[in-house]
């Protein structure tokens, strides 16, 4: 009989090894999936992981990695702080949308004024929009004890309705021939989140994501607040005994993750996307949950996981166009990654042992 035996303390080696093992298992089982779909598994896996980095058109795909990875990392960093404390913000997608609406709205309010302060105002407005949206579940949880998972998730759909509404109304481009969608911020220089180095994909969102990683690392490892976050997640009663105020922690964690998601939305709408439109959001807020866990809720891990996830996105798109793999297969592939990670995670705290049946 095989039994799981709890380790006296979590294994360091396994906590580093599980993401790698999970990636390998995903490649194997993803390969099987692709083979069943009638594709050459090695070619498919190669396309997903190799092509964007070192393929013929890598010069085009590499900047895309930054563009896709930055919002994932930025959102995931915010989520990870809450997740560490057992506060589950599932609605980053909605906060991302609200950040984009607020950021773009602030910028468009100044149109066509040309001034250096417009972009900073948009940054603040974007963060505020996300913070505001995340503060709703935070406030309801603190005040009435509602479940933040449900409230934050449902607010995603409310945000989507808001997005549709402003695309068709408030923020609609007056010169857009009646088509839905706002003015293109890429062609409004004061509001444009342009690449810092042309052709590199490096925009302010990427810089902010890197700053967020460093900030989160310092917070969690060097600051009392970060210690309290970790303590609350690991032993809520001990946290209360240590003097942590749970309400304040909820407001902080949800608020900060909302602000970061809002920033991600704002950088996206003012840069790579350019336009507030009905189909502006593409699921970064949900994928970031995977990224947060794939990165073991550790800032550096999230940075790497965000890169990996961006890779599967872009590689997946290439595989779709070149090999004709269905989009759903790519999503299953990404889902496998999280599944295997969580499954192998067990080995951090438990060891597998063959046991003889003993009389208790």
């Amino acid at each position, binding site marked *: 009989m095989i039994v799981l035996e709890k380790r006296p303390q979590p294994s360091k080696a396994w906590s580093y090894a599980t993401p790698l093992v999970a990636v390998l298992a995903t490649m194997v089982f993803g390969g099987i999936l692709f083979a069943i779909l009638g594709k050459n598994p090695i070619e498919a896996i190669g396309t997903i992981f190799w092509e964007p980095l070192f393929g013929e058109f890598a010069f085009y795909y590499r900047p895309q990695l930054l563009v896709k990875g930055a919002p994932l990392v930025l959102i995931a960093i915010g989520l990870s702080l809450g997740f560490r404390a057992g506060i589950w913000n599932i609605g980053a997608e909605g906060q991302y949308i609200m950040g984009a609406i607020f950021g773009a709205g602030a910028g468009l309010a100044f149109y066509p004024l040309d001034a250096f302060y417009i972009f900073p105002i948009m940054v603040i407005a974007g963060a505020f929009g996300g913070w505001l949206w995340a503060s709703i579940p935070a406030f309801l949880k603190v005040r009435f004890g509602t479940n933040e998972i449900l409230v934050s998730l449902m607010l995603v759909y409310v945000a989507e309705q808001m997005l549709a509404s402003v695309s068709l109304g408030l923020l609609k481009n007056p010169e857009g021939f009646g088509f839905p969608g706002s003015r293109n911020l890429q062609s409004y220089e004061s509001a444009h989140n342009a690449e810092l180095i042309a052709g590199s994909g490096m925009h302010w969102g990427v810089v902010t994501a890197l700053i967020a990683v460093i900030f989160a690392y310092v917070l969690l490892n060097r600051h009392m607040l970060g210690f309290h976050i970790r303590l609350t997640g690991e032993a809520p009663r001990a946290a209360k005994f*240590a*003097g942590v105020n749970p309400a304040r922690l909820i407001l902080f964690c949800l608020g900060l993750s909302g602000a970061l998601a809002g920033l991600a939305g704002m950088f996206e709408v003012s840069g790579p996307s350019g336009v507030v439109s009905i189909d502006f959001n593409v699921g970064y807020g949900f994928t970031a949950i995977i990224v947060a866990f794939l990165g073991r809720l550790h800032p550096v891990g999230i940075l790497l996981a965000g890169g990996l996830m961006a890779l599967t996105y872009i590689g997946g798109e290439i595989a779709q166009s070149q090999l004709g793999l269905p989009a759903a297969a790519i999503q299953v592939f990404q889902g496998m990654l999280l599944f295997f990670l969580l499954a192998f995670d067990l080995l951090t705290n438990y060891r597998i042992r063959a046991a003889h049946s003993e009389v208790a």
Partner: protein
Amino acid sequence: MTTPLLSLQRLTKAYPGVVANDQVSFDIGEGEVHALLGENGAGKSTLVKMIYGLVKPDSGTMLLRGQAFAPPEPRAARADGIAMVFQHFSLFDALNVAENIALGMENPPPMGDLASRIREVSETYGLPLDPFRTVGDLSAGERQRVEIIRCLLQDPKLLIMDEPTSVLTPQEVEILFETLNKLRSEGTSILYISHKLEEIRTLCDHATILRLGKNVGECVPSETSARDMAEMMVGSTLQTPERSGREFGDVALDVSGLSVPSPSEFGTALKNVHMTVRKGEVLGVGGVAGNGQDELLGVLSGEIQTTADAIKFNGQPIGKLGPTARRKLGVLTAPEERLGHAAAPDMSLTENALLTGSVREGLENNGFLKWSETKSFAEKIISAFDVRTPGPENAARSLSGGNLQKFVIGREVLQNPDVLVVNQPTWGVDAAAAASIRQSILDLAAKGTAVICISQDLDELMEISDSFAALNEGRLSAPRTTTGLTVDEIGLMMGGAHGMEVAHV
């Protein structure tokens, strides 16, 4: 005299370091409600686990209706008509009542038949329960009914109940007692484990009292006062304190008119608690578990806040302050539950040193943590209190209970508190470690710290306390000087002579 239903003869069970049951013998008659009475750790659970086949005795025999009885596993015990309701339920929240009961049966009948039998039994015994309700929606009392009905469906000869009323409201207790009386009148024997004396006096025909694994006496509860039973539980071998005549300083902690509801549904609210502790004094708070000990610690640590004036430290009202502010002033606490309350299991000892030490040891600077100082503080605790661990980077849960307890107490003692409150400081700790913890508390008091020691170990309280009070259903008896306190008087203070309640209200 007729043959008893179950006869235990010189049952002995030893675990490493402790003899849980030492030559325990007693009989349970047919149709008798037999109480098994004892303090925590007296060996009650081990004894019933042997009867139920979960634990094998090292020596001794059991006779069921005169036949040798040695169940190798619970299934065998059940087949012989022994059923047990555990203190902690084993039910699946997501399944309904009937499904849960079916899961515990060897050959479950079809669901429809089972449901009608559940209805039948629940009506016969006055245990209202709908077989198709989801267990997750049931109250603790209703969950217990599921467990009881699961047992009754086996038509048991002996029903073992482990502290059944600890999770019940008074109304539910009444319903339970009616059911048990009905079972008795039908000839079912019940072995009733509890330390609630009044309940046993109402319900039980006979009581066996265990103390430190030994059968120390039997009595007929209805003819014995709660006080006498408490004395038997406590034993008459209490040591008289050797220290006396020490001078105390000013009042350090003054609690007056403190009443707080319990944060937990089944906790005990504190009712009009008064006490003062002077500098250098050790106040021992005794009482049977679950009478407000956790709440008292919580309200003193600042986890439960109350009106400002209810608690005063050196004359300053602190009732509204949180744990951090109280630590800053010098009021430190060590809770009973080591893993998860006093310490975070998966965090290192260094991080656990930070948990309460950050303010007084100056381990942070504007919120930024000083890890090297924190590590030195953890190392200081480890060496001063002889905590056996390879080093401060090890997780708290990797330590044995006694070593972690030394760490938790040491963490507070080394912060030089002005007031120290400890709950069960030596619970589950070996004798040598317990002695060193007690000594450190005494040394602290000698330096002028006011100490409140909450404990269920009366010997311990007699050894270290200058004055003694007991918690009983959330009320604290008036503290009295330990010197000259007799076992009689202690029994009266903690045994809950119910006449006193009227006087207090």
